[in-house]
């Protein structure tokens, strides 16, 4: 195991929300010393050139196509994309084919992931068998097998009796439930958010109210069952007051939002551009700004990529028929820099939402820039400009809405457990 001395770095500390110039020594997989004036003997010395050094991103909610859709993304390709994107821990979703809903299945993917990926991978498991919303999974066994959270992803359980029992049972094991707040009736068949744009394009829309209704229902169940609850994506202004109220009343509730909902709006769909079709659909600019503000205030805790690989075939369809989702492991950080350059979020605020908070919520030691924390770090230049060419992405699927767009922010190096897993200078794995 190498010892590494990083100096001349702009340290981004999401715990104190401060930035300062400094040095970091990585040793035995941990951040050993912060602020040492000289390099230890025999250490690899890296001059950071004044660029930013932050805790590696902990991405809550990554879809990998194993099992079932390995042609869209494998643990290997996702891991390489994550390393190049400064994501040091992927929390992968169970919405695979078949779903990760048994301890045997979880052990299988855990083994596959460990062999293939240069970054850390932790797994979520389904809350109900087959994500069908009928019977709960073996939450206890799945926890023992390493599940960090339980989620049916975008399948919303309509039967509140089933859901309340699953919540109640999960509470007894102190398990975290990740839900997709959405009213299933109102959102059925929707491809875009209701409004003038949806109507002019002739596409079926869903009112943002469906998200609030889903959240209201879930929060009532949380109040009843007392479970630890995380809403995967809160994307509308209307959902913020109930969230704020729940937190104020002491419910164990957190919320996330995808980078796409923070940086794009419904008009970006333009002439039926299916790479902009995500779930829930992109919202109005007013909603986007409200949600950005909620991240700044800390009301929304977590920013994630909602990385969802789709092949060309499933996107090259009429808008209504096209698959939802966008890849984002590699574009999460540069897209987040848009919020930094717009003066809406500071770098420590961004890394609080992308690293510290998700790690804390899942009980992981990552996400901090502190002595004794795991040496999972990202070195990046927040100002480096480039034009994104989707075919340069390391994901097997290239369905990014940022194709051809001007971006700022480049990952220079990524460290996992003190080892460099990506180095921009060498153009790949270090």
């Amino acid at each position, binding site marked *: 195991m190498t010892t590494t001395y990083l100096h001349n770095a702009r340290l981004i500390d999401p715990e104190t929300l401060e930035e300062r110039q400094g040095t970091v020594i990585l040793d035995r997989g941990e951040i050993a010393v912060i602020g040492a004036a000289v390099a230890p003997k025999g250490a690899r010395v890296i001059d950071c050139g004044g660029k930013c050094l932050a805790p590696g991103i902990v991405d809550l909610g990554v879809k990998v196509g194993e099992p079932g859709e390995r042609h869209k993304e494998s643990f290997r390709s996702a891991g390489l994309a994550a390393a190049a994107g400064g994501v040091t821990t992927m929390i992968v979703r169970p919405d695979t084919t078949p779903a990760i809903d048994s301890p045997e299945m979880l052990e299988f993917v855990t083994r596959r992931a460990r062999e293939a990926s240069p970054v850390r991978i932790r797994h979520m498991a389904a809350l109900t068998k087959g994500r069908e919303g009928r019977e709960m999974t073996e939450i206890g066994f799945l926890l023992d097998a390493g599940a960090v959270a339980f989620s049916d992803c975008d399948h919303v359980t309509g039967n509140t009796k089933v859901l309340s029992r699953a919540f109640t049972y999960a509470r007894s094991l102190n398990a975290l439930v990740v839900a997709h707040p959405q009213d299933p009736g109102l959102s059925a068949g929707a491809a875009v958010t209701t409004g003038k*744009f949806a109507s002019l394009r*002739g596409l079926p829309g869903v009112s943002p109210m469906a998200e609030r209704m889903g959240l209201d229902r879930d929060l009532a169940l949380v109040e009843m069952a007392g479970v630890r609850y995380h809403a995967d994506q809160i994307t509308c202004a209307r959902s913020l007051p109930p969230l704020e109220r729940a937190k104020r009343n002491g419910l164990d509730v957190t919320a996330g939002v995808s980078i796409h909902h923070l940086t794009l709006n419904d008009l970006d769909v333009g002439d039926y551009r299916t790479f902009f079709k995500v779930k829930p659909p992109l919202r109005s600019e007013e909603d986007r700004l409200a949600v950005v503000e909620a991240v700044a205030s800390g009301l929304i805790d977590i920013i994630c990529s909602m990385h969802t690989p789709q092949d060309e075939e499933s996107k090259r369809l009429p808008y209504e028929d096209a698959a939802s989702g966008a890849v984002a492991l590699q574009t999460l950080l540069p897209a987040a820099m848009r919020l930094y350059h717009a003066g809406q979020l500071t770098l420590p605020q961004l890394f609080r939402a992308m690293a510290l908070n998700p790690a804390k919520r899942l009980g992981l030691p990552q996400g901090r820039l502190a002595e004794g924390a795991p040496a999972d770090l990202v070195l990046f230049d927040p100002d480096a400009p480039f034009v994104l060419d989707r075919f340069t992405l390391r994901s097997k699927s290239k369905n990014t809405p940022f194709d051809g767009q001007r971006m700022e922010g480049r990952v220079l190096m990524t460290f996992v457990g003190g080892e460099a897993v990506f180095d921009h200078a060498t153009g790949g794995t270090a």
Partner: protein
Amino acid sequence: MSFRARHLLGIEHLAPDEIRAVLDLADQYVELNRRTVKRTDALAGMTQINMFFENSTRTQSSFELAGKRLGADVMNMTVAQSSVKKGETLIDTALTLNAMHPDLLVVRHPSSGAVNLLASKVNCAVLNAGDGRHEHPTQALLDALTIRRAKGRIHRLTVAICGDIAHSRVARSNLILLGKMENRVRLIGPPTLMPSGVAEFGCEVFDDMAAGLKDADVVMMLRLQKERMDGGFIPSEREYFHRYGLDAEKLAHARPDAIVMHPGPMNRGVEIDGTIADDINRSVIQEQVEMGVAVRMACMDLLARNLRAERGRAATGVMA
């Protein structure tokens, strides 16, 4: 040349002078169509393919006749939706057809945006003959021509569009066109059949028929698209007819010289009373059908001119 478009995908992309260019040329074709010999050679040697992924008798025959009167070789492909796996086949069919070097492709498809997708994959001019709930541009143009010929102008009129606005591509295209030509547009219908965000359209919205029809110059009725209803949008047909069906009593609120339009096919006794539809002093429904052929001839003629010019430039290496 004021008509610059390469495809006719929607009214949204047309400028007012392009709309006027279509209508002016269509006026000439109306005269031609009333002669015994109705043939020109504007599209001579060109191939027109009509691809209908959704059943249509009226629009398809109108496009077929328009192409034949312009001298094109016309082929009809009726692709029954049941036998087509959506999407994949759409691109594949488009590429297959493209390899046969058509010059004009007329497409109707049940998915909004499907014609835009198809147009991005082929080298010929594409005409949208209706896509989902999105647009039906030739219908709006033929309606505009009908209004212009009946009223002497297509600006500063009060036009009431009544019925199932939410599911109607005819309503979309018409309200965009009428807005571009500076008319006052009113949308009338039950709130369950109004599209979302309708308040931002720049139209007046009414759920009361009498109030909405007051002093209207043009009354456009829409078909109640029963086949698109996947939930109870209205309580019953008879209540709908009572509140929103056009009869003499409701029409009395419009201007005395107001004209009545309907894109067809009509549900007599559901959205329109039979006697109104047949009243030759008020109804211009048959004229709409006549104008349809002329407008489609004009659109195809103009697109073919642009296509020839583009190919000419490509062949001689002159940049546009």
